[in-house]
């Protein structure tokens, strides 16, 4: 599914994107994003991090074409986003977005059917995707029978099965405990290093951001803008030793410094 264009350069360009919810004059009107600009390079893993309500998930939805920006433009592969493009972009959501009335493998196959993949390929692609996330033995289970971590693996399998060049992940590990989260992070780094996908990953966790990302975009408090982009400069896949390295600790602290003031701002704002 690699489109013709060069393997380098910007794969996603976000230019002056503003997103406003609610009509003008409404006291509940919210400016979620204000003139946010960012470019994501091909094959890069970009983490979006910021205080609650800073619009990072909103930006992800705009990239995925699930909503349209109030102003500004987003382009993927040079094409302006005007709606979901399932052949190019796959999604992993925060809560379990698996269909509970279908088995794990049927969830993956249904995604392929939605995407319009040829019927003859669906079985094989679904099995391969489940094997890739280590859920081969759980193909016939229903989502309700899986642990939180396994559900997110299954959701990842559904997204990988679509074989898109782009993967958008909206706090996929937020609901998991820290230990599960760390293991899943390691596996994800391993898996994604092989696929060469361009990934945008929203997270709350500083460590997760540094551990996974090539670059981390730090958001300001609402209205969200991009305050700074930090490069991690560490090859993939990342091992356990990176998790405990001084480099990771230093970058984590740098992120914390950047975020600290922004988090304070949101706390003052939301105080009754």
């Amino acid at each position, binding site marked *: 599914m690699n489109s013709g264009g060069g393997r380098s350069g910007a794969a996603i360009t976000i230019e002056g994107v503003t997103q406003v919810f609610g009509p003008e004059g409404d006291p509940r009107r919210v400016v979620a994003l204000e003139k946010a600009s960012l470019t994501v390079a091909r094959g890069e893993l970009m983490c979006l991090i910021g205080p609650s309500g800073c619009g990072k998930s909103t930006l992800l939805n705009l990239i995925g074409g*699930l909503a349209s920006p109030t102003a500004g433009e987003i382009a993927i592969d040079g094409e302006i986003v005007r709606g979901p493009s399932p052949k190019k972009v796959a999604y992993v959501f925060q809560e379990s977005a698996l269909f509970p*009335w279908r088995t794990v493998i049927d969830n993956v196959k249904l995604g392929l*059917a939605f*995407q319009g993949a040829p019927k003859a390929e669906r079985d094989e692609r679904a099995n391969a995707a489940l094997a890739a996330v280590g859920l081969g033995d759980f193909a016939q289970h*229903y989502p309700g029978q899986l642990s939180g971590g396994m559900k997110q693996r299954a959701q990842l399998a559904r997204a990988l099965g679509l074989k898109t060049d782009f993967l958008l992940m909206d706090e996929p590990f937020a609901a998991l405990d820290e230990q599960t989260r760390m293991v899943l992070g390691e596996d994800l780094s391993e898996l994604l290093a092989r696929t060469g996908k361009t990934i945008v990953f929203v997270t709350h966790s500083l460590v997760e951001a540094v551990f996974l990302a090539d670059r981390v975009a730090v958001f300001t408090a609402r209205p969200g803008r991009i305050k700074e982009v930090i490069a991690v400069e560490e090859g993939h896949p990342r091992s356990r030793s990176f998790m405990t390295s001084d480099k990771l600790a230093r970058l984590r602290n740098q992120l914390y410094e950047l975020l600290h003031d922004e988090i304070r701002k949101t706390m003052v704002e939301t105080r009754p």
Partner: protein
Amino acid sequence: MSGGRWIYRLVQLAFLAAVLGAWQYSSSEGLVSPILLPSFTASVHEFVKVLSTGAFWPDLRVTLYELIVAFLIAASAGCTIGYLVSRTGYSIRVFDPLFAGIYSIPTILLFPLYVLFFGLGAGSKIAIGATIAFFPVVLNTIAGFGFVDKTYVTAARSMGASGVQMFWSVLMPAAFPVMLTGLRMGFIIAFLAILGSETIASLSGLGHRIVTYAESMDPAKMFAYIFFAILIALLLNTSVSMIEARVRRGHG
């Protein structure tokens, strides 16, 4: 725990036996006039006769026919209208309280009107059964389709689901369990309404037979048909629950 269960069953059986024993005793000792209350054994005797001769067939056929037609009308109207209403938040806010309000008034009071409209035969029974069954079906369909988890819809949309795929693969399976509850409730109250309305004004059917025997001072036969109606109600409830359990299991 299972030992405790047996005790419950035993107490329940003892309670039933006591009621039937009191019945038998009061009629055999002449405490109650046999015209008002025949003996239990005489009623059972008539019941066995009704079963063995197959005398129940014509009335059972009428009642079941009315029930099935009424249910089909209520189910198709309720599901269609419920789905259409569920499509916008506005129409849910308008129609959901409206249907819930009408559901709470005793719809059986429309029966005299239906007799005028549709006559004494099956028509008026079908109309009252369908009217009463419509409300739980429509309300549960609105609840089922109106409150599908948004994450499912967003996920399907992100993967490129078409309108038809969204309906059959996401909305329908998400709404189905709630709809099924409405359909079961509708079926059961349609049966109650039809039996009841047959006892008020009718030409045939199980309810009609019960009233005919009561009015002709033949209470043993009346009780025989009451037993039969109870038997049919039990069979219908059990089969509806079995169908529901089966469908739910296939549903995952």
